[in-house]
């Protein structure tokens, strides 16, 4: 009478589900797992959406801890910043990733540069796509940095206590232009060669040291094989190195100066 309810045999899928469940639980309890995922990680056992865990997410991540645990409510309004500074930074990361990819297939010599770029289209998987992304992301970054500067100005966000960060921002704008300009030469085609000729001719007009600066940058009186190597090193190593330092100061100062500027 009491046994009218028959015990159903668990199906295969249920069995598998059960064993994976216990496996997941065991893994999440293991020391290795817990040493990798710090408190606040959604991969930890018993993760819940609590104020404490929300704080841990930021504090315990090397990337996110650029941010404070809490930000002003108006700061998360997209309509205020349009995320322009953030977009510039994302584009910089995108440019770094695609740039590293391109470096595998490029030799900065007058004899090989152009054909290496041309070969991206024909003999490198996704070569053309990655080059396109690098090119367009670079133009976008110049644009977004410009717009970011305009946004900051129109919000009066350069005023005290953010004066110094505004100057860092101007340095970053200049560095962005230089990064874009040095990259412009690297395909070594008619477009890049003459655009850089025009650009560096302007530089030569500066008084006193103009000609010597131009000579050092070009590695000669006019653009040649030496220029290509110099600009390559500037483009892939030196300017990124410098801009990363300035970006670090920029982001740090945003926090130190009390987050982004107040509501209007």
């Amino acid at each position, binding site marked *: 009478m009491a046994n009218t309810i028959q015990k159903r045999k668990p199906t295969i899928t249920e069995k598998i589900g059960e064993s994976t469940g216990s496996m997941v639980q065991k893994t999440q309890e293991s020391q290795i797992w817990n040493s990798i995922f710090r408190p606040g990680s959604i991969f930890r056992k018993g993760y819940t959406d609590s*104020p404490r865990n*929300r704080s841990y997410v*930021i504090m315990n991540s090397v990337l*996110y801890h650029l*941010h*404070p*645990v*809490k*930000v*002003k*409510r108006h*700061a*998360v309004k997209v309509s205020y910043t349009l*995320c322009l500074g*953030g977009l510039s930074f*994302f584009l910089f990361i*995108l440019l770094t990733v695609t740039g590293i990819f391109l470096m595998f297939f490029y030799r900065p010599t*007058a004899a090989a540069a152009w054909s290496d770029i041309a070969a991206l289209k024909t003999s490198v998987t996704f070569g*053309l*796509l990655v080059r*396109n*992304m*690098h*090119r*367009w*992301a670079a133009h976008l970054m*110049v644009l977004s940095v*410009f717009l970011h500067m*305009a946004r900051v*100005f*129109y*919000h*009066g*966000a*350069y*005023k*005290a206590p953010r004066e110094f960060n*505004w100057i860092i921002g101007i340095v970053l704008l*200049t560095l962005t*232009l230089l990064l*874009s*300009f040095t990259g412009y030469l690297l*395909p*070594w*085609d*008619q*477009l890049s*060669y*003459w*655009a850089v000729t*025009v*650009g560096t*001719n*302007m530089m030569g*007009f*500066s*008084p006193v040291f103009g000609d010597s600066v131009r000579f050092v940058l070009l590695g000669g009186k006019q653009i*040649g094989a030496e220029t290509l190597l110099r600009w390559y090193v500037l483009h892939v190593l030196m300017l990124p190195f410098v801009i990363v330092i300035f970006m670090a100061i920029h982001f740090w100062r945003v926090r130190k100066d009390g987050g982004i500027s*107040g509501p*209007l």
Partner: protein
Amino acid sequence: MTEIPEHLLKRSKSAKAKKAAAAGAEEASTEDTSKIPRALLERSRAAKAKAGGGDAGGGAPSGGGAAPVPAGPSGGGVATLAPPVALGPDGHTQRLLTVVKSGSIQDIKSKPVDKVHTWPHLLAAEFTAALFIMAFTLIFSIFINAPLLTLADANNTPNPAKAPWYFLGLQELLTMFDPMIAGVTLPGVVLVVLGMAPFVDKNPSNKPEDRKFMISLMTVHLMFWAVLTLIGSFFRGPGFNFTYPWDTGLTGIFHL
């Protein structure tokens, strides 16, 4: 008055609503909802009456929460109260002389700021923006190829030879002024003046209506460069002479 943050207002509102609801319930059925059994209450009342010599009648009001609340802010920071009606344990009258408001003695330097957790409020927006810009760049790159002209040739100057678009404003200036001025002095001055902006502009307000002059100045400045860049990009043909884009075609756009 200081601005009270939204979340504090919300919290106080909900607390008030809760209190009002609780008070209503208490009034409706004081005895029934009380956790203290009726018999015990009766006994304590009797004991109190005995101790007070019978003069206190029904005894002190049992509801501790019914203590009088200080009157609203009187501006001076000190609110005096009418003699209270509550009686102490031995039937003595207790008198609240003054309430000293915190602001009158303490100097509160940091105002409360309305804040939200970075995760998820800010990070979610940032992830979305990052995905959007990735998707945009990817799709744009699938359909539009970066230009690659023929191999660089120092003996074959293209006509017109143009700088990258962000320097075309400068190149445009070169057609009007001496290269010393257009190529070096002017951009240098612009950068220095921009850098000095926070030290020159002493106006502390960031409200647009308070800074009409600076905003117009910046707008004119930005428009100046934008117009020069557009002219340099689309209105300059062979020999860097002025042309209309409908005569020569939008060649500039293919030379980014």
